[in-house]
């Protein structure tokens, strides 16, 4: 099961090696050419013998995580966030840390020792540490050094009505959809890029787009979904199970209307449910791709992800299947020459 392997492997921004190795192994048999660029993004070329238009499919490999910045005399690890992590949700979570993937627990001062005023305020980053069971700084230092990363330990499990929970659905779900898609053959050149460092500023995608120079780009993402208690309709962003979320606008991209109309028409023609992403906040690799060189027509297809960036994220497996169906249907339409042009 690809989603299980992908979400359970470790890869915060800048440390995507483990995820990249997994994806490379999976993609190799179906690719004309597989290589890594200078920043670490994995580029998988298919259909190179075909004439254009050339399509880029991009999904980012990195997840949000933690970075070790110091070790206390007691052997506890001080850390900072890599990417957007809500520090209020960290206490008592288990993590794996360092090159040996040691188990650790995020600890803090016990609740009964907190002053009454202190209990009402969420714990700050400075009050949290990772406990790896070391007796001393010296002992901890044998296994850990500053600059090592930590990730959550959540196991992928399916649950409820066709849903699943894991860490890092953002964006391993995009990686999984891309990997499943590249096992199909298309009579156009399709380049799949598994990018690095998206969570800390869309850094990997720009150089990839510059190198690949596609005519069209589709970004696959896990995106915010807050369809839970206490949220009005206009705060939801997306709804779980309502189909792939098509981006209209976010902090870094105003999606080209022709691309949006193209995807909506394909969803309609193929009876694939979809929804529009109804929030400005957030961004994805399209923000970097669409401004590359003279501009690249780009769109984003996202899987709604509840509790995104938290240790336990939830998705609908129907949304995953429908996202892939939509992407494949779009590629088939492009094969037939029905792609948006200016």
């Amino acid at each position, binding site marked *: 099961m690809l989603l299980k392997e992908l979400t359970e492997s470790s890869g915060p921004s800048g440390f995507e090696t483990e995820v990249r190795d997994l994806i490379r192994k999976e993609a190799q048999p179906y690719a004309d050419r597989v290589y890594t660029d200078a920043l670490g993004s994995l580029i998988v070329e298919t259909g190179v013998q075909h004439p254009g238009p050339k399509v880029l499919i991009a999904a980012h490999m990195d997840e949000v995580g933690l970075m070790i910045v110091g070790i206390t005399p007691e052997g506890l690890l001080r850390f900072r966030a890599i990417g957007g992590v809500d520090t209020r949700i960290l206490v008592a979570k288990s993590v794996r840390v360092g090159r040996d993937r040691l188990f650790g627990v995020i600890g803090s001062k016990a609740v009964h020792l907190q002053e009454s005023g202190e209990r009402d305020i969420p714990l700050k980053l400075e009050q949290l540490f990772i406990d790896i069971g070391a007796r001393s700084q010296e002992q901890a230092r044998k296994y850990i050094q500053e600059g090592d990363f930590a990730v959550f330990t959540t196991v992928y499990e399916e649950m409820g009505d066709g849903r699943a929970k894991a860490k890092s659905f953002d964006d391993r779900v995009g990686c999984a959809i891309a990997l499943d898609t590249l096992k199909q053959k298309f009579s156009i050149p399709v380049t799949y890029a598994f990018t690095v460092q998206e969570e800390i500023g869309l850094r990997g995608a720009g150089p990839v787009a510059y190198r690949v120079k596609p005519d069209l780009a589709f970004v696959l993402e896990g995106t915010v979904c807050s369809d839970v208690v206490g949220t009005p*309709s*206009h*705060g939801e962003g997306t709804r779980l199970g309502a189909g792939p979320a098509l981006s*209209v*606008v976010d902090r870094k991209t*105003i*999606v*080209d*209307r022709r691309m*949006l109309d193209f995807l909506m028409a394909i969803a309609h023609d193929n009876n694939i449910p979809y929804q*529009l992403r*109804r*929030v*400005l906040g957030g961004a994805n690799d399209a923000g970097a791709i*669409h*401004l590359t*060189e*003279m*501009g*690249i*027509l780009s769109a984003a297809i996202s899987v709604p992800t509840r509790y995104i960036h938290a240790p336990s994220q939830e998705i609908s497996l129907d949304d995953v299947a429908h996202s892939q169906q939509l992407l494949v249907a779009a590629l088939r339409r492009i094969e037939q020459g029905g792609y948006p042009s*200016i």
Partner: protein
Amino acid sequence: MKELIRGLLTVSGGSGNEGGVAAAIKAQVSGVADEVFTDILGNLFAIKRPKGAGSGKTVMLIAPMDEPSVVITDIGENGYLRFEPLGRLQASALIGARVRVGRTGRLGVIGVESKADHAHLEFQHLFIDLRTADAASAAAYAQVGDTATFAYGMEELDDHTVIGHALGSRAACVVQIEAFKNANSSATIVAVFSSQAQVGSRGAQVAAYRIRPDLAVAIDISPTGDTPEAKRISLTLGGGAGIKALDRDMVVAPAIREQLSRAAVKAEITAQIEVSPQAHSEAGAVFLSREGIPTGGVAIPVRYADTLSQMADLRDMTACVQVLEAFLSDL
């Protein structure tokens, strides 16, 4: 010039939806341009080649087409629209504002939830009332992703002062249109009317990459420092054409600034130096393109930029056109 401003202010041009503005500008420049085209992001390019041999150089002028707007993010069951800003708008300044949905032309009014705390007002507390009964009827006038712009148009305060909701972009476009029409240069002139400037010079970035000019001049408005308790900004309204020295995104090379200042002297017009540490312009995105592009700027002083009532002086705008003409004729 006044009627050109008035005309361009009747067109809605939210970021990413500049098509109407581009069409209006194209009608103005087509007659004098050798070539006119648009790109993926919606930038409009007008090219004027030199008569005869020419210098072989290319100079790019750039002015933004988009105005501050809001983008519809949700249509409630009751038909009220929710939105977020594209550009530098304050939520508190929008209560009661009249807006027009760009694509359909439908008018609406911005309302506020009564429970909202006005000291900490956010866009999530505001809504647009299109006076429709429910989501289905609202959908005929607005969809998620549509932009709405402010519906005020142009007013004349005296014989040389104009007020408008989108002068920030259209005043710059008008100056560029006039300068492009009148220009007589040995260089190839590429006038870029850019898209998505309000959300961070996105059109400018890809346009500069495409044109790869030898020299570029960004034409933009810039706030003035001549109102009560204003920030320390050098420009004054009515003080003449602004020659950019520095803004938030770039410092202009002294040689280019002097080249523009000399053009002002030659044209015998009043000029002032623009030092606006808070103001954005597209010059910053252009000069960082490719290997780096020598870039200067001409600034139109505007009071109350980023509000619904921006104020400009036609005499300043005319001066900006004359500086550009003199500059282009000397290349």
